[in-house]
């Protein structure tokens, strides 16, 4: 959003139109706040309950990379919440709007360059993702039977990772939403979303994958790995994690690639 970018004609900055789009999305989100919270909280809630409350009570508690499982899990679950919000906030509605209702039309016709309409979607999705990640935090304090050793060790890294990861999730959502037909969304969940979650170093730090060497290299293609590792760096520095510059660089690269695909797909859907 650049206030100096004045559009020609009636002298209204692009930023105003962009803000209008964002306000519309926030209005819709406010209306569906209850379902939004349920959707975001359910998965981490159950994960924490089963693996960090039930398991220790039935004698299955373990440690990974020298830390208790709850501590390893917290950043990972935040990463998953970020990613799922990106998909739910952008991919599902966009796929509907393109394939069925065409209601995106009015927003495409606003006095903004069309890529900016796509970028607004990514930004709105990022807002949802950040909220989702923050909603996971209190859960981790109340549920686990074993204490979670988390504190903000590195504020700049936390904020950088949170923002970049949320934008990457939005860009992934945009890529899926503008390239996948509504009937195929379920399939995309099975073949893309679920694998990248399970192989996203959510349930284990990347460093311990050294025991499965080939996998340790393959997962480097997965943007969720960097989300999890980045949050680990910032929140649970006691758990082994990747070096920060590598994480930031990989998230930036993912954002560029997915954002590029997403905007291209969006343009293809609205301009013929």
């Amino acid at each position, binding site marked *: 959003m650049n206030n100096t970018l004045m559009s020609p004609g009636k002298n209204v900055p692009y930023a105003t139109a962009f803000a209008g789009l964002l306000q519309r999305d926030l209005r819709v989100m406010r209306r569906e706040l209850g379902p939004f919270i349920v959707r975001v909280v359910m998965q981490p809630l159950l994960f924490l309950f089963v693996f960090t409350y039930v398991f220790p009570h039935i004698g299955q508690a373990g440690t990974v990379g020298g830390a208790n499982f709850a501590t390893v899990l917290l950043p990972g679950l935040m990463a998953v919440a970020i990613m799922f919000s990106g998909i739910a906030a952008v991919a599902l509605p966009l796929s509907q709007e393109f394939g069925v209702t065409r209601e995106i*039309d009015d927003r495409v016709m606003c006095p903004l360059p069309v890529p900016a309409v796509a970028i607004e979607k990514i930004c709105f999705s990022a807002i949802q993702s950040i909220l989702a990640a923050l909603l996971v935090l209190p859960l981790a304090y109340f549920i686990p039977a074993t204490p979670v050793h988390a504190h903000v060790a590195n504020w700049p890294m936390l904020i950088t990772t949170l923002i970049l990861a949320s934008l990457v999730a939005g860009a992934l959502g945009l890529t899926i939403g503008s390239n996948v037909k509504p009937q195929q969304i379920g399939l995309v969940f099975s073949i893309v979303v679920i694998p990248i979650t399970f192989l996203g170093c959510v349930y284990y730090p990347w460093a311990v994958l050294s025991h499965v060497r080939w996998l340790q290299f393959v997962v480097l293609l997965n943007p969720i790995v960097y989300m999890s590792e980045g949050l680990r760096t910032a929140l649970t520095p006691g758990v082994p994690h990747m070096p920060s510059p590598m994480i930031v660089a990989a998230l930036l690269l993912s954002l560029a690639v997915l954002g590029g695909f997403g905007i291209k797909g969006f343009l293809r859907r609205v301009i013929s």
Partner: protein
Amino acid sequence: MIVEIADLTKVYQDKHQRITAVDGIDLTVEQGEIFGLLGPNGAGKTTTIGICTTRTLPTSGRVSIAGIDVVARPAAARRNIGVVPQFNTLDRSLTIFENLYYHCKYFGFSGVEARERANTLLKQFLLHERGESFPSQLSGGLQQRVQISRAIAHRPAVLFLDEPSAGLDPQSRIAMWDTVRALRQEGITVVLTTHYMEEADELCDRVAIIDHGKLLALDAPQRLKTTLGADTVIELELRQSEDTRLLVGKLNSMPQIKSIEAMPGGLRIFAHGTDGLLPEIVQAALGYGVRDISINEPSLETVFIRLTGRELRE
């Protein structure tokens, strides 16, 4: 002039086929008129509107809206454009009021201005009791009315309506015509596409007849009907329609008949008035077995038939 279309073409090309949807259209629309693009489905009307409204990129040619080139400066051009597409694009997640309110916000209205404008529009379009409803709770005719009010909310110079009466019941269609006429009173230029000749005839100041992506004629409906020599069209269906040379000769000698063309199963006769003519035609066609005779008063339909040899409707 408010809309200027110059030598516009659009070719859709893929591996299997090449379709020329718009084939060198030139036209201009003046400030304040209701302008109709009339033609059968697939004539290139929607593609032309798509290009005018920045949603389709032309293969060649130029369109400017209020002096702004739509290809070079689409975001700026959109300020002057209001669009009601063929399908319902109301925002299902927002109420009717919010549909109008946020539309205004996209166009840079402040919160207060947007609220005021939305309320004014709700009143003007007799929707004030529906402000809190969601689009799905409204009938098709009402949703159409909301779409039109939303399209003009940012006070565009020109409103594009693509097949506005498609899917409307006759009563809603007449209400929609009244709405469009009222917009002209406000000075909004309206460009609409239609394949209903009554709609073009009833509503438009000028009509462009389009077929296969080409502009065939452009004038006021009344002038199209008189100047194209399209008078009354008499369709004569015959049992024996193979060799009608003799009959055509007889008919041609009748002074009221302007011209005759063959159509499947009979003849199509263009005549000036019908007084006393029908008995003569029936008499002349006695040996051919007259199955049916139908008379179409001069209309845009007959103009279209005259221009293309085909009927407007599929």
